[in-house]
């Protein structure tokens, strides 16, 4: 009986050390994991909240429906279109916290297209949250499919920019930085990180 009680106390002490060790080692691992997998440091108990802007307030989702002529040519000119978008989006009040859709106009230049009531569905909001906080390609794909359906662009290829606001106080400039993705009929592709820093 005495031995069992002693063993139980030892097991409890061991459990205490295991839990405390996990809690002490997890934050540095979380820091590395957030960098490697691109999820927001605000999540998963790593104490990284307020270390960078909340994705919901400082990240915008921009989608460009590609013309069929561009879409068929392998890797799309995502840097060129990003520069075009940077010049277009001069009025921040036009930018939606939900989804910003751009389509080529008759002259070929990009135009903003209103997406009415898109983010009223809880399902779409869930996909948006997962996309912004965890860069989840699965949820981004669901968003892209839903927006293609709503804008009746079923077979179109889409370029997606997850755009963040950046500042350089030393040079007194604001610029944007984006993670670019390409969605065609095959697997979505991550194209890389680009910015319009002068």
């Amino acid at each position: 009986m005495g031995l069992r009680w002693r063993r139980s106390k030892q097991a409890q002490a061991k459990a205490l050390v295991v839990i405390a060790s996990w809690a002490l080692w997890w934050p540095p691992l979380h820091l590395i994991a957030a960098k490697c997998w691109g999820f927001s440091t605000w999540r998963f108990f790593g104490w990284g909240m307020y270390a960078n802007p909340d994705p919901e307030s400082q990240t915008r989702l921009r989608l460009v429906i590609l013309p069929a002529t561009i879409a068929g040519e392998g890797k799309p000119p995502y840097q060129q279109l990003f520069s075009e978008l940077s010049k277009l989006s001069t009025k921040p009040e036009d930018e939606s916290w939900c989804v910003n859709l751009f389509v080529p106009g008759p002259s070929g230049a990009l135009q903003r297209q209103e997406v009415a009531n898109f983010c009223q569905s809880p399902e779409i909001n869930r996909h948006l949250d997962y996309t912004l906080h965890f860069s989840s390609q699965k949820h981004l794909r669901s968003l892209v499919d839903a927006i293609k359906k709503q804008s009746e662009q079923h077979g179109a290829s889409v370029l997606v920019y997850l755009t963040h606001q950046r500042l350089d106080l030393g040079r007194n400039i604001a610029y944007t930085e984006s993670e670019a993705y390409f969605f065609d009929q095959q697997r979505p592709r991550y194209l890389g990180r680009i910015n319009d820093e002068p």
Partner: protein
Amino acid sequence: MLVARRNSSLWSWWQNFLQSLLVHSSPEGVSPGLLVFFRVFLTVKILSPELFPQGWLATPAVASLGVLSVMLLLTVSRWYRLALALVAGVSGYEAYSSWPFTINHGGLEFIALMLLLLEPPPSSETQVLRAGTLIKLLMISVWFYSGMHKICDGYYLHGEFFALEALGQDTGMGKKLAALWQFAAGLLHENTSLPLLACCSARQLGVSVAGAAFFIGLSWATILAELLLPLALFFHRTRYLALAALFVFQGMIAYFSGEIDFAFTAYAILLLFVPVLYRWTYPVLIAAYLWVCPWG
């Protein structure tokens, strides 16, 4: 065999290291009486939003009051582990149901409850390894790793995070930072205006040199406070000064970020560092929590 022995020695080394961290971070320990008040706080903090979802004064349901009273009686009795298990269940369910968007301090509360629940009875072997001292060490790590994140993520090194908030002015923190800048600029006879910048655009900013210096200085003050104040708790000479500074710093975090709910948890753990007057400080904290009602 060799691997097992090496693992065992690594485990012993880690246990010894952890114990020495505990001795230095908590030389005064945590008395059983103090821990009872901390348990009561956690019980009220975790159960109140569930029992009184519309607010403490809005829904004074007899049944909810009854459940809370029974839980509090259990928490201070010899069956406190049963109460802790129930509260940990509620806290765990809250974390599970909001996963993966669970708020971080919900995790801290859950871990604190698990440590309290699994704490073995005091003996010579477990004299240092107590739940109260481990919870204090965890809180030290929360501040420290927050500072590490701020260095590694890069948004604080050049004042970018605070400037983004202040220039955006679409969050409570942004508005308060802009107001703080205007106050500081007024004292320095500087131009108080800040350009408005909503996400996302590329352009010249027009922030003055003093404005840039203000945001960079504020960022580094935050980083240094988060890294150095927790470390200063380990040294006898700086311990009480660091403790006082952490009380003030935590209040500033709560004011600027609006994270009132987290502030109550942080203050409850901070009070574990103060082994006197706890019969007064915890009831005041609990009363303040119910009065402010951050969940309602």
